[in-house]
């Protein structure tokens, strides 16, 4: 009997958590009628997971919705599990999914029959930047020296996952410079940064938020950012440099550009009114100070898109990924 009571208590605690987020809020024409499932096609603790949980926290703190938002991690098969679940929830407006670049790369590298067109694009929340990092004790002060060293001998590049964004950038680097890197996949950005601090690898292309603390501690050095413009953010991060002082790779003579989508999608076949509700909700999330804080911390590119421009952007990115993956030989047989 004890056991059952305790188990009910634990379930009650979960429901209590949900209830806290429930105060009614009248606003758009359509409103969620049930708790909303917010799928993260990645494990707990990663960038997408963090962003999803910040959104969840903002929605409940500011009472933006009359039903709770529940984050569920569906990380199986590099996120395929989460994407397929969202696709199979056709017409269900109570399902949202946050995406990373694996929206494009996972179906292409595994051959799982799925594309972003199987979902309803809602809003691009931000783009995540990539920076080329080396150990501060390494002799490479700038991109030119790094490229020269890479051409002279194989450098070891660490990254998150296999056949995903970090490796795609590495392959793009190889094509742009003619050098060959040994790519070593790890589980997460934090691990990659530490491996670089410990000099087990020579370089990484981590997101700013994954490496910033080591930069400030003086153990890592940024060489360039893979964007067409410099990172936003006033003020200094270290004693001498701030985000805006990192040159773009292009201005350093390395023509590689890559940004990662942080976007929110709904299930296929939901009505325009339902889509409008979610667009509106996410606009208001993006206006909160907590969201701005997250954007500033991670030096995110705060471009946001909705509707047709978002779909067009997705179409272009999909093609670009297909080309990049094809050139790298990462496409699954028949993909």
């Amino acid at each position, binding site marked *: 009997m004890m056991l059952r009571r305790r188990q009910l208590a*634990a379930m009650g605690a979960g429901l209590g*958590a949900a209830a806290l987020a429930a105060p009614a809020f009248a606003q758009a024409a359509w409103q969620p009628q049930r708790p909303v499932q917010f799928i993260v096609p990645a494990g707990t603790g990663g960038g997408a997971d963090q962003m999803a949980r910040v959104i969840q926290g903002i929605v409940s703190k500011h009472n933006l919705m009359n039903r709770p938002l529940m984050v569920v991690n569906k990380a199986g098969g590099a996120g*395929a599990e989460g994407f397929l679940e969202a696709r199979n929830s056709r017409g269900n407006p109570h399902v949202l999914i946050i995406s990373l670049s694996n929206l494009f790369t996972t179906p292409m590298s595994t051959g799982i029959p799925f594309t972003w067109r199987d979902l309803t694009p809602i809003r691009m929340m931000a783009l995540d930047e990539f920076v080329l990092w080396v150990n501060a004790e390494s002799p490479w002060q700038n991109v030119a020296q790094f490229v020269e060293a890479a051409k002279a001998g194989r450098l070891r590049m660490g990254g998150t996952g*296999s056949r995903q964004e970090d490796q795609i950038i590495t392959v793009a680097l190889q094509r742009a410079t003619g050098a060959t890197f040994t790519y*070593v996949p790890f589980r997460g950005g*934090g*691990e990659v940064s530490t491996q670089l601090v410990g000099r087990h690898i020579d370089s990484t292309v981590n997101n700013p938020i994954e490496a910033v603390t080591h930069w400030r501690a003086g153990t890592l050095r940024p060489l360039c950012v893979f964007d067409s413009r410099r990172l936003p953010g006033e003020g200094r991060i270290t004693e001498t440099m701030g985000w805006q002082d990192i040159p773009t790779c292009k201005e350093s003579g390395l023509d590689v550009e890559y940004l990662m989508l942080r976007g929110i999608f709904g299930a296929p076949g939901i009505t325009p009114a339902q889509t409008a509700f979610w667009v509106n909700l996410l606009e208001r999330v993006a206006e909160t100070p907590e969201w701005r804080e997250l954007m500033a911390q991670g030096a995110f590119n705060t471009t946001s898109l909705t509707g047709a421009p978002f779909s067009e952007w997705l179409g272009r990115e999909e093609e670009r990924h297909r080309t990049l993956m094809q050139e790298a030989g990462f496409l699954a047989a028949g993909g």
Partner: protein
Amino acid sequence: MEEIQLLGHGFAVALQWENVLLMVAGIVLGVLIGVLPGLGGANGIAILLPLTFTLPPVSAIILLSCIYWGALFGGAITSILFNIPGEPWSVATTFDGYPMAQQGKAGEALTAAFTSSFVGAFVAVVMITFLAPLVAQFALQFGPPEFFAVMFLSFACFIGLARGSPLKALAAMMFGFLLAGVGMDGVTGQLRMTFGSMELMRGIDFLVVVIGLFGLSEIFQSIEEGLRFKGARARITLGTVLRTWAELPRHWALFIRSSLIGCWMGITPAGATPASFMSYGVARRMAKDKDSFGRGRMEGVVAPETAAHAAGTSALLPMLSLGVPGSPTAAVLLGGLIMWGLQPGPMLFVEQKDFVWGLIASMYLGNIVGLIIVLAAVPWFAAILRVPFSIIAAIILMVCAIGAYTVNSAEFDVVLMLIFGVIGYVMKKLDYPLAPLVLALVLGDRTEESFRQSLLLSEGSLAVFFSNWLVGGIMTLGLVMLFYPTLSKLWAPRMQPA
């Protein structure tokens, strides 16, 4: 002695009444989470994380880390009472904890488990207090080859533990490796052994298998034996707790050894689960009468629990000082730090003294509060055993099913649990040991990954595993452990002439 001063300041922060309240709430919640198999500390904290958005960071981390301590304590309860590990790191606790409960010594086993957890955590916290910067430096030495060496050592310590046929143990271990290989291959980004099934894509979860192998098969066996629940006659009072305590100081060497193993595994960061297995293996190796292990030895409970809690606690250190989580739960906490506007990593100790020392002080307090709460509850936990088996079996089955479902919110996992329940039953009947299977399943993934990462880094040369004193030392130690049983057999006749 700057640390003492900072720690004093930390205590002032942690002892504010609202923080103490959060501490107690966190421990109680954590114990509940730990008791339910499947709903692990990582899940529990992830669910509660957004709620902490409105709290100041120190209070938030105190609440969440106390859930973590609570879960570490709670995992042992079902392992000992029902042979169902509530958390991965309490699998090794079942080996001797459950036989103890069957012999009517559930109270002793629970008291030993909780006390060892406390000791392990305490040693780890003291280490964090005084050696944090040093330890962080040491952790940086660990690249893929070193990580593989640690995994190799874990296997080496554990191998040869199973009684009976070594070939059967080997077969069980290989089956475990096979299961660990299902799903996404992290190194090539390809799906393996999923046979086109969407359900198999996420891999076979360790907890689901363990719930089936240990918990369900145990129930099947009890049913076969006529619905009898051994150990039901146990009378447990607070006196049991005191009696057990009087007995524990005898195992001081074991406590020290297990704490050290735990701290080391937590920092590396390999985590609490391998630490508990390694510690159990070493304890058995060092014991005089090895065969009594697995039949209800108190050392068999003390060793894994001490190491697991020491590892679980010290796993927070690399998270705070390097930004690398030492366990899944630490990974979620790491996300929390970033949400609260803190950057985990080397600068945290310099810039956020209030936060870091408040957290460290709460580790001391949280563990003391936790120990009092769980010990006070020992008679209640043990009283569950007096419920008639026909009633409790149904409840256990239900809890198992809920647990298996919660791991990934997948119905398929419930089916998988049932299948492994049958496999576990058959294996027990045929005398195949379960422990090597579980060990291979839980460590197989990381072991394979770090092995292949090492070979990528060395471009295929195995020499990488002996390339410096650290990795070479661990590998050599592993090899010695691996061949020790064979060697000692060879030497034995010569050492005992006549």
